[in-house]
């Protein structure tokens, strides 16, 4: 069992639910809710949900009529992955010469930037992301496993290679982690 298999505590979204955040996005984030806007977890989830909407709205509209059950399942899986990824997780330390400074990124922030890197690359919609390795040791090699949906017509091997490079560059640039490998598994194909 990994930490991703554990049940989510109720306060993962600082007292809010993914449905409340979806409604809040639907309202254009108005009126402003300070308890949502002031929560890093809520903002992380909303950023990912918003990007998912922008990427997949066309695909959703086209496939919903033909395969409503399959489409609902795909979206549900993506939303569940986004919800799971807001759990703060381990701290990824950032080195500093002053020992009084204890600096880090949360594992959730790193997963979020992996998702952001993939979703903004084009050609894929990111699914799950898992970080494997001793993240709490500076400079330790890390292995990243991701799933993604592939835009119909995109070459599998070339897109996977591009996604690996994009993710590795983003993680190394922002965190100082050494990316040992990025494993990509395409688990769906969608129309652009």
């Amino acid at each position, binding site marked *: 069992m990994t930490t991703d298999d554990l049940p989510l505590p109720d306060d993962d979204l600082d007292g809010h639910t993914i449905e409340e955040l979806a409604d809040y996005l639907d309202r254009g984030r108005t009126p402003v809710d300070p308890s949502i806007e002031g929560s890093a977890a809520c903002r992380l989830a909303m950023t990912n949900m918003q990007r998912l909407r922008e990427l997949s709205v066309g695909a959703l509209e086209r496939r919903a009529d033909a395969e409503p059950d399959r489409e609902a399942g795909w979206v549900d899986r993506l939303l569940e992955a986004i919800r799971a990824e807001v759990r703060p997780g381990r701290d990824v330390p950032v080195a500093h010469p002053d020992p009084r*400074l204890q600096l880090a990124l949360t594992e959730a922030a790193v997963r979020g930037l992996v998702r952001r890197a993939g979703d903004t690359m084009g050609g894929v919609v990111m699914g799950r992301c898992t970080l494997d390795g001793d993240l709490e040791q500076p400079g330790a090699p890390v292995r990243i496993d991701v799933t993604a949906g592939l835009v119909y017509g995109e070459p599998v091997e070339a897109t996977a290679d591009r996604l690996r490079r994009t993710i590795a560059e983003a993680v190394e640039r922002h965190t100082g982690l050494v990316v040992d490998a990025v494993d990509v598994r395409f688990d769906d194909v969608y129309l652009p």
Partner: protein
Amino acid sequence: MDDEALSRTLTAAVRRVPGVTGVHRARTAAAAAEVVAAALTLREPDVLVDVDRHGGRVQVRAGIAVAGDRAAADTVRAVGECIRDLVDAESASSADLVSVTVQLVEDPVPTDPPQPRD
């Protein structure tokens, strides 16, 4: 300067560090209660950096959101140094521990709103 005033000063200073898009409470067991308190406006939203004095030690904790167009590691280092330098200058005792955690890396936010076309 009391701890609340110091926290307010630190919160404002952290918000001004290039690359910072938000300041959040460092995640604690009391986070849920703090959300409720904030919703009821029982806690000043500008007092978000934790200042803890215990046994003659000063510990400061903050959570931040950062923009993705600057390396998050660079931004969190700048925030840590900013807090350390301010505490050393403003407080009777220097900071023993400054803990800063990046909780969110966000898409870059345009600094200027889109201009209407002619």
